[in-house]
Every structure is written in structure tokens, then in C-alpha cells.
């Protein structure tokens, strides 16, 4: 019922453009309405009243990276599972459900090993403590 097949993407493009234009428009309109008298103290980053010490762009805990890593593997797993899940019902109707179920099971079982491994090795724990060998064995070091 549309002129071309691509017309179904008009709302997608239009709504994303509205997202950009709304921010730009509000900032431009606000430019004429709001006061503008910056000073040095006002433009400091907020640190509860103290003078900020150093930059915040320092190195961070590597835990965040490990989480992102496990996520991306499961994200890709989802991307591969979606088309298979969409045709599972049709395969089931023609009597091939068992085979498809088996291949889904194998696929998930292989990936579950990964998460089990990370779980066992403690990569999923947020705060991981480990013993310091020999001399300082009395205290545990926390990251």
C-alpha cells in the first residue's frame, strides 16, 4: 500500500532526526532566554565544594571490561539465535522440531560452558580478593 518498499523506514529516519533537532532547537531557543554569566568557580567540575584534584580520565577497574566482554559474546549469540528461533515453529510443524531443538541445545550448551568457566574462575564476582603469597600472607588484598 506504499509507493515504494523503502517508505516503511520513513518513521525510523524521521524520529531519529527529531531526536537531534529537538536538542538543537531547545538549546537554540534557550540561548535567547537564559542568562549567561560564567565564572571560573562555576565552571569547575563538581567535587562537593572542594577544588577538584586531577583529571577524572584516569584508569579504571578492569572489571568493567570483563563484563562488557561477556556481554558482547552473548549479544552475538542472540543475533545468531533470533533467525533460528523465528523458524523453529515452522520446522516443528513439518516434523523436524527434534533436530532443530538438538542444534539449539548444542549451541547454548557450548556457550553455557563459557559462563560456567567465568563463574568458577571468579570473573563474575565484582570484588575479587586474592591471597598475597608469603611475606604479606596475613592480609588479603582487595582491589
Amino acid at each position, binding site marked *: 500500500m506504499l509507493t515504494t*518498499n523503502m517508505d516503511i523506514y520513513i518513521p525510523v*529516519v524521521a524520529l531519529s532526526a527529531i531526536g537531534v533537532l529537538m536538542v538543537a532547537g531547545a538549546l537554540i531557543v534557550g540561548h535567547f532566554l537564559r542568562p549567561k554569566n560564567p565564572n571560573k568557580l562555576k565552571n569547575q567540575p563538581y567535587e562537593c565544594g572542594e577544588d577538584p584534584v586531577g583529571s577524572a580520565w584516569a584508569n579504571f577497574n578492569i572489571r568493567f571490561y570483563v563484563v562488557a566482554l561477556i556481554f558482547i559474546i552473548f*549479544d552475538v*549469540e542472540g*543475533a545468531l539465535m533470533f533467525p533460528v528461533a523465528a523458524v523453529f515453529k515452522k520446522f516443528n510443524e513439518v516434523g523436524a522440531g527434534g533436530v532443530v531443538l538438538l542444534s539449539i541445545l548444542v549451541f547454548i550448551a557450548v556457550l553455557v560452558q563459557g559462563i560456567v568457566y567465568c563463574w568458577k574462575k571468579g570473573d563474575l564476582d565484582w570484588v575479587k580478593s*586474592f591471597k598475597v603469597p608469603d611475606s604479606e600472607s596475613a592480609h588479603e*588484598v582487595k582491589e
Partner: protein
Amino acid sequence: MFDSFLFYLSAFLTCFGAVLVVLERNLMHACIYLLMSLIGTAGLYFTLGADFLAATQLVVYVGGVVILMLFAIMLTGGGLENKKDRLANLLSYIPPMGSLKSYIWGSITAVAFLSFSINITTKLVKSTEINGSIKIGPTVEQIGVKLLTDHVLMFELSSVLLLGALIGTAIISRPSKEIFLERK
């Protein structure tokens, strides 16, 4: 009308983003331009009728790879490059390859090779291109059927690949006590 608009918009986003990735020196900004280029690529997939691939591009790249890169840039010092590498003029992007003569010979060879290969491709395209409007079939179902019949081995093996990537990287990037103590 809208289909050509979508094509030109996505092509512009893709190419402009790629150019900015080349020119930008701040890695964080380069990552955002890469995001722009990836979204443009998703738009190109939409114009090609590959809606599932476009959505996959959005899910895997925008949601996954770009965030991973942002994390990595931040963990390795915020992408502030050395002063040594911050080259101001465009000329210095040309890789050094000897004297002027080699540049001349190189460009002549490149032009000859490109025109030759483009000539062949255009002939091929003209002879076999399918005419008519793009058919947007439910590509999801077709891809699903392909994944379960012709490419089932690759489907299963990709899970093994992902498992390998997960375990390998978990081992590599696990915070180890040696480095931690050394820093202390």
C-alpha cells in the same frame, strides 16, 4: 523518492564517518565517528533489503563493539595520543615510500589496475544485474532456514568460536596479582 534519499543519507554517513575516523586525532571522537559510519552501514543494508543484517549491525556494533572500544580507550588512558603522533598537516598521512619516482610509478600502476578491474566489473554487472524493484522478503526466515540447513556446521562452529573468544579473553584480561603488586 525516499529510497534514493535513504541511500544518499546512509552513503554520506558511512563515507563521512570513515573520513573523520582517518582525520580525527582524539580516539574518543574517532570512536564516535566510527559509530556514525556503522549506523550509515546499517542504513545501506536497509536499502539493500537486508533488514535483519541492518538490525544485527545495530545490535552487535552499536550496542557491543563500540561500547567495548570506548571502555578500552578509557582503560588505556583516555585516548590522548602522544604529541609525537599528532600530525598537523594532511601531507604527512601519505606513507613514506621512497623518492618521487616511486610515487609516480605507483600512481600510474594504481590507475591502470583500477581502470582495468573497474572495466571488468562493469561488464559483469551489466550482463547479470537483476532488474526490477527490491523485494523485501522476510529475510529473517530465509536466514534462519539457511542457518539450520546449508550452514548448520558454521552455526555450531561459531558457538565454539565465541566460547574460545570468551575464555581466551577472560584469561588474558584477568587482573593478575603480579602486576597488581608490582604497581604497588
